């Protein structure tokens, strides 16, 4: 099922079907973003958003609040599509961001 996905409000949100669903300023647990085994990364702005049949992904800029590393990251899964419904990923769920959606 196709959903409409984009960044919104100058990168403050990822919107799915025109509803603001994931915002900046949350802490996400990411591996591979910084020297930390698992970084505690605050997202500062979404740069791009995209979707597959199953997932909504976004790239962002952010900063690890543990080590201070900052910059752009690859794609992270911000939500899943289950029976056409968007379900937000728990930011505490450790994930490694990837280079491509």
């Amino acid at each position, binding site marked *: 099922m196709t959903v409409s996905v*984009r960044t919104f409000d100058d990168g403050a949100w990822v919107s799915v079907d*025109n509803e603001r669903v994931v915002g900046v300023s949350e802490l996400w647990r990411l591996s591979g973003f910084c020297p930390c085994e698992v970084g505690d990364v605050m997202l500062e*702005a979404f740069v791009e958003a995209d979707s597959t049949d199953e997932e909504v992904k976004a790239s962002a800029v952010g900063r690890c609040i543990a080590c*201070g590393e900052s910059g752009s990251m690859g794609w992270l899964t911000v939500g899943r599509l289950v029976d056409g419904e968007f379900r937000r990923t728990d930011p505490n769920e450790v994930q490694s961001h990837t280079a491509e959606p």
Partner: protein
Amino acid sequence: MPSDVEQWKDEIYGTDIRAHIERFAEEGWESIPDDETGAWFERFKWYGLYHQRAGQESYFMMRIGPPGGVLKPGQFRTMAEIAREFSTGPAENPIFGNGWLDVTTRQAIQLHWINLEDVPEIFERLEASGLSTIQACGDSWRNIVGCPVAGKDRHEFVDAETLADDLHDAFKGNSEHSNLPRKWKVSVTGCREGCGQGDINDLAFEPAEREVDGEAVRGYNVRVGGGLARNEPRFAKEIDVFVTPEEAVDVAAGISALFRDHGDRENRYNARIKFLMDEWGPEKFRRVLQDDYVDFELPSAGEDLRSEYSYNAGTTHGHGDHVGVHEQRDGDNYVGLNVLVGRIGADEALELADVADEYGSGEVRLTQRQNVILTDVPDENVDELLAEPVLEHYSPDPDAFQRGSIACTGTEFCSLSIVETKNRQVRYSRWLTENVSLPADVEDFHIHLSGCTASCAQPQIADVSLRGMKTRKDGEPVEAFDIGLAGGLGERPQFAQWVRQRVPADEVPGAIEHLVETYVAEREGEETFREFARDMDEEELAALCEPKETSYEDGFLHNTKRTWYPYAEDDDLDASPAPTNPDDTPVSADD
């Protein structure tokens, strides 16, 4: 590939948007098709309407930008009346109540909780008063900022008020310049004190003098490419061009057209002209401007006045702001009033409009330090004006911390902000006033608090810079700040050095207390803080501000972004009444 925003702008933008706003207002909030909200909210910005954050759907912020911050007699009253009638929401702010005006760092007024259905009537009232929201937001010429006492200032070198008005008249509603790649911020400075803050604007006109045909002519040097946002601060660069007041609009049109044609429309993060300036450099920029956009020979820069600048400059000479009673060129006085974090209750704004009428000309001016100025007060009226009760709160002689405090909108309404700002900054300044002493010669101590890297509170140009972040305290996520020190403008502007990262919000006052105590104990003579810190390296600066808990209690350490309104009794997002009708009842209640 052009961005979504560029495609939406290509379809409908500029003055064509007005009819659609009127249509949606007539038919109601729910008439905006769900799959078109992104496009319409982007377009509404051009008319000064910014949809508020999640949990506040159907409410808008409205921005009104008078050129140079000059509100002619009656205009401030009009805005206060609109604020009282239309700018109220479904919950109260515990410090500011319900219904207020925010004075911004770009000499505009912002109103919140505006319902779309009320917009046509508000537009009518504003227009009847000679005001407009056109291009207050969006990708075009924003409010022209400048010396707020232009035309009246004893320190004026060249008439900045006329040029600000000329630029406003030439570029507001001008279809040739209404769709630029990104926002376009312009400043006009005419005084010897530098209070237009040109260095942080996309385009700056700065006072200068040059010999033309054997005659000394007063006009402006031109700088391009300043801005503070997105961790990419730049000071505007001198492009070695002098313009007379008569030529300034033509040169501005050339530079604006150059930006329109060469700015990046594919990547909005790279779209501001500062990035084009990074790529080209001032020499190429000048060459393209001369060759393709101006049909007369551009003179090289004249002699500037930057060595005299004192505005937000951390010097002991001249004015650092406009607070207090100051003599005008014509012998009357202007009275600058401190507005803590820029917010004025609607009823108090009406009182200020009354005293402006009674003791001055009725004119009210807005400054880039979020303050207001009442002008044209004859000597014989000054004492009576100063005795008015409303000036106890909006004081011409405030405490140094309150005088120096600036804060952006924050998570109360803004999607981008990471932390709560205005209420917190009020609490910070009150705590500092009660617990920390500055010497009598330090009249203002600049603390600029911005909720995120967009930098709307201009955090990089303050004695103490606070920029919203997150951290963990006892394992829990809490709101926090990066702390920067010793930034400011003047002859040699410098950005703050970020010396402390992710300080929990409740430990910031302790860090500032430590900083001030060290400064007071160790400074030489009447050194300003910026002078005191000038030769310190990052490590020495960091040692000045050791974070610590104190008697200060922070009411907003939790994640205010996850609320629908941080101060509501039940602040959970699910408890939001939005979207609502204009009477603040939920739209769903209609069913």
